[in-house]
């Protein structure tokens, strides 16, 4: 009797153990990206940009060319790469502090120029790497080390909905929000990342997928509770949907 492998490690994913906490969304998304690089034959032409955040060493996990970028500056770095190497497949990976706080100017302007790269945006409603401070996406009332009595919108403002902001711009080709709340949510996320990658391959300009993602450590929940919290609470504030899809055009 012969054995049939139903699932193997994607070739574009290094065979090393990751440093992420148990139940963290980063590892899940890294794997989805690697699977798509294999399936879409992108590994050989990918130049990836890793952020500053928990995923700072993403380059140790993907088997592709990859550079670091200063905190928040990945979209500008990717702009430089893609303009000089238009044939490269340029992947940008960012957390919410990186993309929606310190780097929001670079984020908006690269999207507004329609730079032909793809951003994978991990929204875990927290600053993970620095130890659980308030993020631009932290929910009203959410307790963090810098909002110890819960985010008070009267003085700290409201969580920023990035997809809705991208959607005000003319140039982006694909904008979607998805969530890692269940195996189904993970599969759906992969479908949407694929579409975003297709938009870039077809030269349609800036594409982005925002992924509501668990950070069990600083959501102060176990991994299953964190996924349930994403479905019940996080996606209530951040609606999961496709905002724009020009891949069909």
């Amino acid at each position, binding site marked *: 009797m012969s054995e049939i492998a139903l699932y193997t490690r994607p070739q574009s994913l290094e065979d090393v153990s990751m440093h992420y906490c148990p139940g963290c969304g980063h590892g899940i998304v890294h794997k989805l990206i690697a699977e798509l690089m294999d399936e879409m034959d992108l590994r050989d032409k990918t130049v990836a*940009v890793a952020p500053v955040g928990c995923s700072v060493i993403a380059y140790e996990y993907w088997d592709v*060319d990859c550079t*670091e970028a200063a905190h928040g500056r990945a979209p500008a770095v990717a*702009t430089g790469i893609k*303009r000089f190497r238009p044939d490269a497949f340029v992947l940008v990976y960012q957390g919410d502090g990186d993309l929606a706080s310190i780097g929001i100017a670079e984020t908006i302007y690269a999207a507004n120029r329609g730079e032909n790269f793809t951003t994978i945006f991990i929204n875990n409603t927290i600053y993970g790497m620095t130890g659980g401070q308030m993020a631009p996406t932290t929910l009203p009332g959410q307790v963090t080390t810098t909002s110890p009595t819960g985010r008070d919108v009267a003085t700290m403002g409201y969580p920023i909905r990035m997809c809705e902001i991208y959607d005000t711009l003319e140039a982006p080709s694909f904008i979607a929000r998805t969530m890692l709340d269940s195996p189904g949510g993970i599969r759906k996320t992969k479908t949407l990342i694929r579409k975003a990658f297709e938009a870039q391959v077809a030269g349609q300009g800036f594409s982005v997928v925002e992924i509501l993602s668990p950070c069990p450590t600083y959501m102060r929940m176990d991994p299953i509770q964190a996924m349930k919290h994403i479905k019940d609470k996080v996606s209530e504030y951040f609606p999961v949907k496709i905002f724009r899809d020009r891949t069909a055009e």
Partner: protein
Amino acid sequence: MAKRVLMTGNEALGEGAIRGGCDCYFGYPITPQNELTAYMARHMPDHDRTFIQSESEIAAINMVFGASVAGARSMTSSSSPGVSLKQEGMSYLAGCCLPALIVNVMRAGPGLGDITPSQADYFQATRGGGHGDYRTVVLTPATVQEMHDFAAEAFDIADRYRNPVMILTDGRLGQMMEPLTLWDKEAAPPAKPWALTGAAKRIKRTIRSYYAGRVPENNARIQATLRKIEQNEVRFETYMMDDADIMLVAFGTAARLCRGAVDCVRADGIRAGLLRPQTVWPFPHEAIAGYCDQLKTVLTVEMNAGQMVEDVRLAVEGRTPVRFYGTIGGDVPSVADVVEQIRLLTTGSES
């Protein structure tokens, strides 16, 4: 035959960079360097190269970083307040061992200051500027010809050492016109076996400055490069130094005025000469020290409150008195001002 043209310093610098093989230019408007950005906007597309007006200086330097990662010869230009914003990106370029050209057409500070020419960013330029242990090679042109030539050569230096290079100039040199001979050497960028191109048929490459636990190794590599630069890239020019007993030290615009002042006082029999650093990092310490035995006084002239004079004092190590004359806040000295300073020195020493 090499062509003679009349251009502003800013435009000559842009044309020099294009001839030096600049693939990508990224910049944000600020006076007194706008002619350079506009020149690149007009001419980079002609050569099928990239020009982007970025949303900020921070974005510009990070675009430079990205293009350099991908193997391009890339540059940005700005003036003092904008160069302050680029410091984080310059630290990352240095930390990741990436070549790039940064131009600072200095204006008066601190703060918004004024658009008048200044040399007050000397410390920022020569001490690293951003965080961490690094240095930027700093070229200091004094003529429109040098604005052009240094820009063309800067990419070779940056590529040779995989280290950022700065051209440090000021609003007067940027905006004045002079005739120059256009650079006519073919740009010959070296192979970049470290650049990110997509890992087809090879193992992946990573560009990083983050090395948890191994940062000392990365720093040691950077320091070894900096020692090589110190050995090979010091540039300076001397004028009337053979029999001089007063040595003026000045760079850029201030050096032009000092040269005029040397001519004036020589007519009166005062034996003054000029040493003009063309790189202020690496600094010509040894050349300056070598003149100490023949000198009565060193006079450093700068358009700031006294910055390079600290390097001159380090070079002289107390063997000769070092005096300073400077104008601050965007004022430019006249030749007559410098002549007066030299005269004061001579009467002072004779009385």
